[in-house]
């Protein structure tokens, strides 16, 4: 019998098994960070690379390439950022076709491309203040982030990974950028914010927020959030919580970068020198 593939084959009413799985098991500590694993300098072909994994499933792989000749001199496009004679930062964000739960999106589909482009723009805005673009006149720095698995807080993880990759590539930077995500649980009437939500929490969240912080400079390089309105006070609280989260994540990223630098150094200096 020929099947109509365009029609949904499932029954009219169905519930995801997660409803019975009892995930989330009770209220969790809103300030708890998910354990983060970071490793810099793991790809051999890229000049700089980093891998960041949040326990719970978010996996991001990032590669960075140092200054290259800009494709079109001047970079007169609106988003080029080459106006001041500095270099351009070109960011790419890709989601693996199997990254998210549920149906596999068509790679290269219009909606998918649109979402990737928006994430790439957000990534660029979060990283641009951290990179010393004025040191790279007329050149192009490239960062590419690949989301292998989306377990929530993906953009935040991508920001952290991308800044690690850039630093690993030997790009001059003012600071690392640390990303952190938050979401507001609709269950809470008071609107409590959760740090680093998982995929399920993110899906049913009333509001979401992604932050990026330059910890040494104490500057916020990205704020991107939306959802059911709350008072500015509530958002302010989220901001404070998120920035605190970024400060707590920073040592992990710093350590992994130091480890990569030492490894690199050991590989290049002959023993005994």
């Amino acid at each position, binding site marked *: 019998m020929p099947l109509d593939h365009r029609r*949904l084959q499932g029954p009219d009413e169905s519930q995801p098994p997660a409803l019975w799985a009892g995930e989330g098991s009770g209220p969790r500590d809103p300030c708890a960070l998910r354990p983060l694993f970071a490793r810099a300098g793991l790809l051999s072909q890229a000049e700089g690379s980093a891998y960041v994994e949040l326990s719970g499933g978010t996996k991001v792989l990032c590669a960075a390439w140092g200054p290259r000749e800009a494709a079109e001199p001047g970079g*007169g*496009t*609106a*988003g080029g*950022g080459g*106006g001041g004679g500095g270099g351009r930062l070109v960011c790419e964000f890709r989601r693996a076709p199997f990254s998210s739960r549920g149906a596999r999106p068509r790679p290269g589909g219009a909606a998918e491309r*649109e979402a990737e*482009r*928006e994430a790439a*723009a957000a990534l660029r*805005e979060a990283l*641009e*203040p*951290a990179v010393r673009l004025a040191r790279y006149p007329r050149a192009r720095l490239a960062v590419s982030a690949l989301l292998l698995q989306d377990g929530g807080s993906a953009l935040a993880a991508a920001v952290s990974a991308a800044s690690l990759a850039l630093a690993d590539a030997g790009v001059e930077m003012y600071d690392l950028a640390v990303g952190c995500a938050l979401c507001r649980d609709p269950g809470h009437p008071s609107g409590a914010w959760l740090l680093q939500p998982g995929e399920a929490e993110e899906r049913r969240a009333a*509001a979401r*927020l992604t932050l990026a912080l*330059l910890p040494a*400079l*104490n*500057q*916020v*390089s*990205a*704020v*991107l*959030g*939306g*959802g*059911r*309105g*709350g*008072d*500015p006070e509530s*958002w*302010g609280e989220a*901001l*404070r919580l998120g*920035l605190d989260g970024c400060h707590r994540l920073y040592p992990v990223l710093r350590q992994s970068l130091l480890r990569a630098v030492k490894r690199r150094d050991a590989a290049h200096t002959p023993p005994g020198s």
Partner: protein
Amino acid sequence: MAAVCLSEAEKLYIVHGVQEDLRVDGRGCEDYRCAEVETDVVSNTSGSARVKLGHTDILVGVKAEMGTPKLEKPDEGYLEFFVDCSANATPEFEGRGGEELGTEIANTLYRVFSSEGSVDLKSLCINPREHCWVLYVDVLLLECGGNLFDAISIAVKAALFNTRIPKVRVLEDEEGSKEIELSDDPYDCIRLNVDDVPCIVTLSKIGYRHVVDATLQEEACSLASLLIAVTSKGALTCMKKIGKGSLDPESIFEMMETGKRVGKALHIALQKILDEEESLGTTRQKVGFLG
């Protein structure tokens, strides 16, 4: 975006002025430029509005078309945004030049309206799973004079206020097949409740202070700005940093407070104008594009 060239001295002049709460055009840091709002300017739409904010000129048309509801929300209609950066605004938008900015603005609008309850989407449903109204919101940039986002959000709100969607009835015959009947009376239509539609307030950081409604010159002096969507009740529905620079945390808190205050005042002023226009009804003299 349209670019202006400023010398260092000019930038310094603007920055120092902002520090003293006095801007080049005589405004304070929290003052908007004089805005002109006119609704119902294009007759082929379900609702339209034109907003002139200084040298920024925005035309928004809303067209209601029938479509099928989205799978995940079978009993709701939806909104689609499209932003066209016409080459009238600046020659850089010619061809595909404005595409990037257009998608950025459209994405921001989606984000702003993603909050449940900003528009009552359930009222756009005709019959669940099968038919709903899709509101296509088309934004046209006629002129760019800075602060595009705020002007666009004002225009979108005004156009949604002006939108009239014809009433339809669903008739079901014995066999279960449904038929949609359009009301004969052109005045028999549904209006949208726009009380909760947010407006965007963009706060540009200049020096140590921030200003609302920046002109192109002021935008050139600002490295980073914070975009906040505020409802008339003062709730925030969207927050976004735009620009190449970064912001320090304290100033973000200040900006959010300012944004709420300014946004509320903006909503009150806008609602007053819209109600006034509404009360005039057909006696209102249309200015259109000759004004």
